[in-house]
């Protein structure tokens, strides 16, 4: 069979990928540059017996998405800066109640209202630490429209598999630009559905580890009468505020769901790293400028490569540490003040880490990165 191609924007690819993954509920509130995701979902979902709701705000949007997931839905919401900030409290509920949902954050220039139409990468750390308390995080950061499509499918799969919210980090440019996308055939991806309980109706403990670290999840209405509190709970879902041992145990298991499965969750791309002496690290759209800079630098005889985390969280620490042992210098390229830089420095051992940052709503150019590479070549 011949490959199928289509031209679409990043936001459209996100919805199309989500539908392929089985999304049947979407709730959101309009915000640039994520709005088209809601618009397209509102048009597509009803045709497939799915449902779309425009809620009164982003707080309600993520809440409705969580509620729908409890009833068995594959549910998603999409927003940007101000909206993602509003979602943080309920995101915590999704984490602690272990609810599979997908949250798309189409990053725009911050802080506050920032610049609605300008791309940015200021939400890396908010994705990781935004909701209070320590918690597991999965965040995927695609770099092309085609990758938005497949990573959205993967986001749903990871959410279902690990019973946890999964973020997709897009940005204003990726969201609105059109690219030719190869539509993968069904046999190229798997569709994961959450594990459901098989025990007797009265024996179900919704937060009991079945040995995999991820308890099976019943859906409301299927005969398992279960309850969950957003307060730290034991394996029955009921609060355990006076038992430090239980509290510690439950938080450990939450964190271990991601920590113990890094091999399955982590995904990254390497570009021309085999013999690299300088390593660039960049996420999302900026990696495209980084690749162009690498090609040019190599023409000039400078051996540069790229490590691009596709899974931003959990960060591919181990691979970065290995490459840090090989190269002389690592340079993060990012559209913020150095959120990736701090992460990379943590895993880089003694290797020198520099940063190329740009925080003005424009994608960093290949030229700017190249200039830094040349400086490093002559000075280091």
């Amino acid at each position, binding site marked *: 069979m011949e490959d199928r191609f289509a031209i679409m924007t990043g936001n459209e690819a996100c919805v199309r990928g989500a539908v392929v993954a089985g999304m*049947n*509920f979407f*709730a959101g509130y309009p915000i640039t540059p994520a709005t088209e995701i809601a618009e397209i979902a509102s*048009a597509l979902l*009803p*045709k497939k*017996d799915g*449902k779309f*709701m425009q*809620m*009164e*705000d982003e*707080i*309600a*949007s993520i*809440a*409705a*998405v*969580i*509620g*729908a*997931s*409890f*009833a*068995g*839905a594959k*549910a998603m919401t999409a927003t940007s800066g101000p909206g993602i900030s509003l979602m943080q*409290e*309920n995101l*915590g*509920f999704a984490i602690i*109640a272990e609810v599979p949902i997908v949250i798309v954050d189409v990053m725009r220039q911050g802080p506050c209202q920032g610049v609605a139409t300008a791309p940015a990468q200021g939400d890396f750390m908010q994705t990781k630490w935004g909701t209070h308390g320590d918690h597991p995080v999965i965040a995927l950061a695609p770099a092309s429209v085609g990758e938005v499509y497949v990573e959205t499918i993967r986001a749903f799969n990871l959410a279902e598999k690990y019973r946890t919210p999964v973020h997709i980090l897009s940005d204003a440019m990726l969201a609105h630009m059109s690219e030719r996308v190869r539509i993968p055939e069904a046999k190229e991806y798997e569709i994961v559905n959450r594990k459901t309980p098989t025990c007797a109706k009265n024996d179900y403990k919704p937060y009991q580890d079945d040995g995999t670290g991820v308890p099976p999840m019943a*859906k*409301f*209405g*299927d*005969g*398992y*009468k*279960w*309850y*969950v*509190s*957003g*307060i730290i709970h034991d394996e029955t879902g*009921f*609060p355990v505020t006076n038992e430090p041992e239980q509290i510690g145990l439950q938080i450990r298991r939450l964190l271990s769901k991601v920590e113990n499965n890094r091999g399955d969750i982590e995904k990254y791309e390497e570009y021309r790293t085999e013999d690299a002496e300088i390593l660039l690290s960049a996420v999302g759209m900026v990696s495209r400028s980084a690749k162009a800079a690498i090609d040019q630098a190599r023409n000039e005889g400078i051996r540069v490569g790229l490590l691009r985390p596709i899974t931003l969280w959990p960060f591919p620490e181990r691979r970065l540490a290995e490459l840090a042992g090989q190269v002389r210098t690592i340079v993060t390229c990012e559209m913020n003040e150095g959120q990736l830089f701090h992460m990379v420095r943590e895993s880089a051992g003694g290797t020198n880490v520099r940063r190329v940052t740009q925080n003005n709503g424009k994608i960093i150019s290949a030229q700017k990165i190249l200039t830094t590479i040349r400086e490093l070549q002559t000075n280091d």
Partner: protein
Amino acid sequence: MTERTERKEHIFDKYLRQDKLPHIWCPGCGNGTVVNALLHAIDKTGLEQDKIVLVAGIGCSSRANGYMNFCGMHTNHGRALAYATGVKMHNPELKVIVLTGDGDCTSIGGNHFIHACRRNIDITTVVFNNANYGMTGGQYSPTTPVNARTKTSVYGNIEPNFDICSLAATSGATYVARSTIANATMMVSQFEKALNHRGFSVVEAICDCPTLFGRINKLGDAVAMLADKKTRFITAAQAKNMTPDELSGKIITGEFVNRTNLPEYTEQYDVLIKNAKEEE
């Protein structure tokens, strides 16, 4: 030897999670009466236990669903209705009930409340109105009467209060009623009607927080507060012929809205799906 007669199954055996008792509420707290009334109403409706979902926010009253043997979610402060909306939308066959306090519902959750009313989605909302924030130790809420004292209105409350039923009615709820724990029979029948109603229903259950609101306002113990309520509740019909002076201090109970002819949200969505499929 006399044979012991088998004890008949009480509805509490069926509907309360016995293993989660005793509850955390203070002696004399009004919340128990509301739960009791709700369980009796649920029993009367004959609704299938497995198909009922209780969603609560945060507060003393929002702990109620932990003691009740149904599917339940204890969510975030003020957000129960938004969570419940998602549950109901994905599976309209579920009977979704929201348990919320006056602060939870009309302060931090006020926006969700008016929008849920407006959509007329088939959810029953039980507002436990004890006129203060119990859980955090008795601060004033949007329903604390003017001049009443609370931990954050020690010189008397100067903020005019919400009338929850009027708020619900003007926002579009299609069943709206109020009763007090001093008349639990009325409360049971309102809950029953609300549960059988197709659309967004609100029952404001006026209850007491003797520990905080009662003590700081010198209203006596739980029994005294209950006795006082008995003298103050009147029906909507009685209220009609009373002057504002006569009405002062009275609690008007009864049904304020009961409209059965308006479209319900999830049913409307089914029509939307049908239309979407027909359109090319």
